[in-house]
Every structure is written in C-alpha cells, then in structure tokens.
C-alpha cells in the first residue's frame, strides 16, 4: 500500500485545524453557523475561480477574500436580532442559489480549466506539494490562534455577560471566531469537501463532550480523535479505494458512538 507524505500532511493538518476549532463552535453555540459555512465556502470557491480567470491571482486567496464578508453578513443578521435558525435558512438559501449559478457558469464557460469535484467531495489524494504547504501553513496558523484564544472564547460562550464585565470585547471576538471558521472552511475545503466539512467541524467536540471533565480535555480529546480519524480514514480509503473524506467522517461517527456507549456504561 503506497502512502504519500503529502496526503498524510494534508489530512493531519486539516483534521487538527478543524478539531481545534470544533470545541469553540460548541462552546459558542455556533453549530448553526458551522452547518451553513460549507455552502458559503462553495460559493466563495466558485467566485474565487471566476475572479482568478477574469482578474488573475490565486483562486483560493480570492475565495477567502470573498467569503469573509459573506460570513459577516450572516452574523450581522444574528446581531440585528434575527433568530439563528431564520438567519441560517436565509443565508443558506442565498449561498446555495448563488453557488449553483456560479458553478453552472464556470462549468459551461470554462469546463476544461477547472475541476470542481474535489471541492464537492474532497480529495486529499490530489494534493500537490503547493497544496500541502498551503494546507499546513493555514492549519498551523488556525491552531495557534485557536489555542491562544480558546479560554476566552469558552468564557464568552458559557457566560457572555461575565466575559463582557471582565473587559472582553465579545462582539469583536464574535467576528474573530467567524473569521477563523471562514478561513478554515474555505482554505481547507478541497481536503474534506463540501459534503463532509460540517461533519469534521462538529463531531470532534461532540465526541469530546461525552467524556471530558474540563475544557482542556475537550480540546485534547477533540484533536486526538480527529487526528486518529483522519489518519485511519486515509489508510482505509487507500486500502478499500473509497473517498478519504467519507472514511474520515464515518470513523468520526463511529468514534462518537463508541464514546457514547462507554459513557453509558459508567
């Protein structure tokens, strides 16, 4: 069985980045936002490709630039008092419709230039060295920022008023977290794919929450379980010739069930 170093680096860095963010999503109760992020990411990638064709430059960089105001739009709706579920529905309606329009345009106008399948299904096996370096650098930056602000983000999530009284600018942190999640979602979309992305964002913290005794353990279990699932998913994908992101998601799901049963036995 051949195992390329690129694949290992890409899958490990991506799984660690998403799983470091996962507890913040859980603590800040941003599951609604994480679920809608892949839709915005797909739209951003499509727009990024269009911009790179018309204006030159890197499509992923364009996608990141486009995606941030898109995500802020959803958060703005919530800050304006729109119910989270309604804001998500409205946002997903817009991003999904716009994605289909943009993808249709690209596939009909530039079919030979762009392959969008890897963004939809995810494929770390297609990673070039350039992709690997990009994924690793993005992931390391995301992990370092997450670790630096984890405690504050949990504090805001658990008791926002108390955090504000202690001098934390909670609204600024909202936009900070949204930015981190958006960059992760767009920058690493190609590795996990549109279909699976929200799974790898949400499940690691859900696994950790079943057994962690404190917030540090949540982060640790989340990252370990995700790294394990990512690596095993990669091996399984190569061995069984299945989609790596699917194997990653299924192993995460299996781990969740195992943790839940073990906890139930206690």
């Amino acid at each position, binding site marked *: 069985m051949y195992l390329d170093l690129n694949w290992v680096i890409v899958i490990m860095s991506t799984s660690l980045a998403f799983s470091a963010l996962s507890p913040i999503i859980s*603590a800040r*109760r941003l599951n609604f936002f994480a679920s809608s992020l892949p839709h915005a990411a797909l739209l951003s990638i499509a727009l990024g490709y269009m911009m790179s064709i018309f204006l030159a430059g890197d499509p992923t960089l364009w996608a990141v630039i486009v995606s941030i105001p898109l995500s802020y739009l959803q958060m703005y709706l919530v800050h304006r008092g729109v119910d989270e579920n309604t804001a998500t529905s409205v946002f997903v309606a817009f991003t999904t419709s716009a994605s289909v329009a943009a993808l249709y345009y690209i596939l009909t106008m530039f079919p030979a230039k762009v392959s969008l399948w890897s963004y939809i299904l995810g494929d770390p096996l297609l990673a070039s060295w350039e992709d690997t370096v990009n994924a690793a650098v993005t992931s390391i930056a995301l992990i370092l920022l997450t670790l630096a602000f984890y405690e504050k983000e*949990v504090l805001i999530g658990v008791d926002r*008023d108390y955090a504000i*009284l*202690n*001098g934390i600018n909670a609204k600024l942190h909202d936009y900070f977290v949204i930015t981190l999640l958006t960059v992760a979602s767009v920058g690493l979309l190609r590795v996990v794919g549109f279909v699976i992305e929200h799974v790898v964002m949400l499940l690691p913290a859900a696994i950790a929450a079943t057994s962690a005794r*404190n917030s540090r353990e*949540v982060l640790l279990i989340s990252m370990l379980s995700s790294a394990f699932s990512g690596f095993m998913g990669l091996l399984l994908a190569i061995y069984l010739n299945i989609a790596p992101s699917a194997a990653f998601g299924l192993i995460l799901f299996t781990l969740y069930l195992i943790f839940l049963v073990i906890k139930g036995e206690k």
Partner: protein
Amino acid sequence: MHETLSLEIRDLTFSYNSEQILENENIRLEGFGLFTVLGPNGAGKTTFFKVILGLLKPLSGRVLVNGEEITGNPSKAGRYMAYVPQLSNIDYNYPMTGREFIEAGLRARGTCKKRDCKMIVDDYLALVGAQEFADKRMSSLSGGQVQRILVARALSMETPILLLDEPFSGIDPRGKDDILSFIRKVKQNKMILLTTHDPVLTVNLSEKIIVFNRGVKAAGPPAEIFRLDLLRKAYGENVLFIEKCLHIIH
C-alpha cells in the same frame, strides 16, 4: 476607600421591543449592606440589573458609582460591580469545572498569572465552601453548588458592589440558608443588591427594599415598605397579610 460607596441612578429610562421597563427612575444607595429589589416574576428586575451593569444601554439617564459615570460601559462597571446571574442564564453544559470557570475570568481580567490564579481561586472556593466539588464538571453539580461557584467567582472580582439576581431560585432550603448566611457575612463590607420575588427571605437582612414592577414603585427601609398598599403596587391583589404574615398567591 469604600466608606463613601454610592450607587446612583438618575432619570434612567429603558424599553425593550417597545415595552417600557424603566421610566425616569431615580435611586441613590449608600454604604455597605443589603438592598433588595423586590418584585414578581417578569417585573423586569434582571433587565434593571443589566442596565445598571451597562450590559443593556439605557435610552436615557445615568448610572454613577461614587460619582463616576459608568452608564452603558460594562467593562467600567465591572471594576465596581460583580454579577451573579440566575442559574438558568448560564450554559454550564459545556464541559468545564468550577475552578476553570473562576480562573478564566481572573485571567481575562489580568488579575493573575497561572500559579497565582490557582491560589486566589482556592481562597475564594474555601470562603464559600466549594473546594470539594470545584474540580467536577459544572453540569454534574446541584443548583446550590453551582450557586456557590458563581458567588466565589463574583467575589474573586473583588468589587465593592455585588449584584445577585434571584439567588434563591431553584435552590433547596439548605442551600437558601447557606446563601443567607453568606449574605450576612459579606454585607458587612460590600453593597449587595439582590433581586427576589419572595420578600420573606431577605426582609430581616435588608437595609432598604426597592419594590419593583416595570419601574420602581416604592423604596425605603423594610418597616416602611412592608405595607399592603405599597406591595400591591408590584404584586397587585395577589399579596395578602394573614395573621401578620405576608403571603403571595402565585
């Protein structure tokens, strides 16, 4: 420093979703002791606290501590006031221990570094008798135990004013006794503002009672305030004195 402690509210007005909660309210509280904000559920007592703390911005009016303006500025208010919210307003389902809960606030405030923080937290946990369960997940604690953690956290902010929002709500009788004895002790050197819908618990401890229902209806020492006509301003016809005992029909 706090011998001249004062909390003043001047012409404070606040409305939420076009519903008037406060209208040109004026109160001045001075010195240490317990000040009880008394009113039925849904009277807007929590909102009143949040406006005082700057967590909600008033439409008009001012909040001053020792003459310093803190209106609509929660980080400034946090230097003078610590807040113990109602248990139902905190999401303690996220895996977190009581110790972490307190330490995170201290570090955010820049009060201490890691090792110092642990010692400070231990002191406050001991003060409220919460050492035994401080390293357990908050979600596994009883209402009374969580309340003690919250009180320790508020005390760790070392502010002269403490706001307790419905501290007896969801607490068993023993827990209520613990909170009362804590109040007796702490009110000697802090100004405590407490909201409750049940006047019986704190009447004997209070320096001043503020009868509240969508605004201040009456304020004064308990002896002056415990009159049927004044209490009915907040509770309506649901308040009765039977054999010199106050009864509120819910």
